[in-house]
């Protein structure tokens, strides 16, 4: 009981802090300096219609590289933690069969979902979306296949290859920017093209597609690792 009281006290202090923040908050009428620069020059400098994409891929590209690294580390640790956990719970109950409709439907729906993921990250510089969303959608199609056929063997080596290749090419493209254009991860070593078309904005679609493939491979590997935790033989 004393512990709960302590928790409530802590939350009350935190709530008071939040209340002060909330009451003192006045919404800006105009963009602040950084945002105004991005809004004014983003489209002209980089040729990207989606300013969020421009910030993630180019202006704050180094942060994104760090973030992808964090994600890679998390995935690796999950693989390590679960790889030693193969000897599992003894009372593994028998799984219920998948209904035929789900199997057929998943075979029908997985390709469109994958296609939507590719559409989302290729059009990342024009419409909402981009590599992270597209990667999550790609992993969702893997999830659908996993739900429909729990015993399906996903190729670990394929996932690892895609992840490693896209990661290396991503860094390589960043170095291209350093050599041929203004700096690391600069997208202007390819022509900027016409504003608002698919093949525009320099290397942004290329870089974001690579991020999408990498994120998709990482999430898929998390899902596959988790689902492979029991290796007990299943009744057909």
């Amino acid at each position: 009981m004393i512990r709960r009281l302590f928790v409530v006290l802590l939350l009350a202090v935190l709530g008071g802090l939040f209340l002060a923040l909330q009451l003192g908050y006045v919404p800006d009428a105009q963009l602040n300096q950084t945002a105004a620069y991005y809004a004014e020059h983003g489209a002209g400098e980089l040729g990207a219609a989606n300013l969020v994409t421009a910030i993630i891929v180019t202006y704050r590209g180094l942060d994104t590289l760090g973030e992808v690294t964090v994600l890679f580390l998390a995935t690796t640790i999950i693989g390590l933690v679960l790889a030693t956990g193969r000897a599992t719970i003894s009372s593994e109950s028998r799984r219920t069969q998948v209904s035929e409709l789900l199997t057929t439907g998943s075979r029908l729906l997985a390709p469109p979902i994958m296609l939507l993921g590719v559409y989302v990250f290729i059009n990342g510089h024009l419409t909402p979306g981009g590599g992270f969303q597209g990667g999550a959608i790609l992993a969702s199609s893997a999830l659908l296949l996993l739900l429909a056929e729990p015993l399906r063997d996903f190729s670990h080596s394929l996932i690892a290859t895609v992840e490693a290749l896209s990661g290396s090419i991503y860094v390589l493209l960043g170095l291209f920017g350093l050599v041929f254009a203004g700096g690391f991860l600069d997208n202007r070593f390819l022509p900027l093209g016409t504003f608002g078309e698919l093949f525009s904005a320099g290397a942004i679609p290329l870089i974001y597609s690579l991020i999408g493939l990498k994120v998709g491979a990482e999430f898929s590997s998390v899902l596959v690792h988790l689902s492979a935790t029991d290796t007990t033989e299943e009744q057909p």
Partner: protein
Amino acid sequence: MPELIGSLMLVGGAVFLLLGGVGLIRMPDVLNRIQAGAKAVTLGTLFTLIGIALMRPEWALKLVLIALFILFTNPLSAQVLARAAHRLGGATDAKLTTVDRLAEDTAKAQQ
């Protein structure tokens, strides 16, 4: 004129959504609620999407795609859910339901 027809269809679809919601409250057991939640709501969403497509013809392609996806995915989830509810037991009100083909089939398959 297409704007007016579109907004009328929008209201019609919203009425179907409302009916689906009422059905979700009023229906007696899980399987009946799945009927209301899947069929009426899917129809209502299709109507609203078509209505908006009539109001803004330049968005029509995306709206049709959304409608197509809903037509593909919603029956699938409703069927899987209904099967799970049936397997859990207690999904139907025994006084109202007299025919249960899935249970018959399962019994036949196990023999």
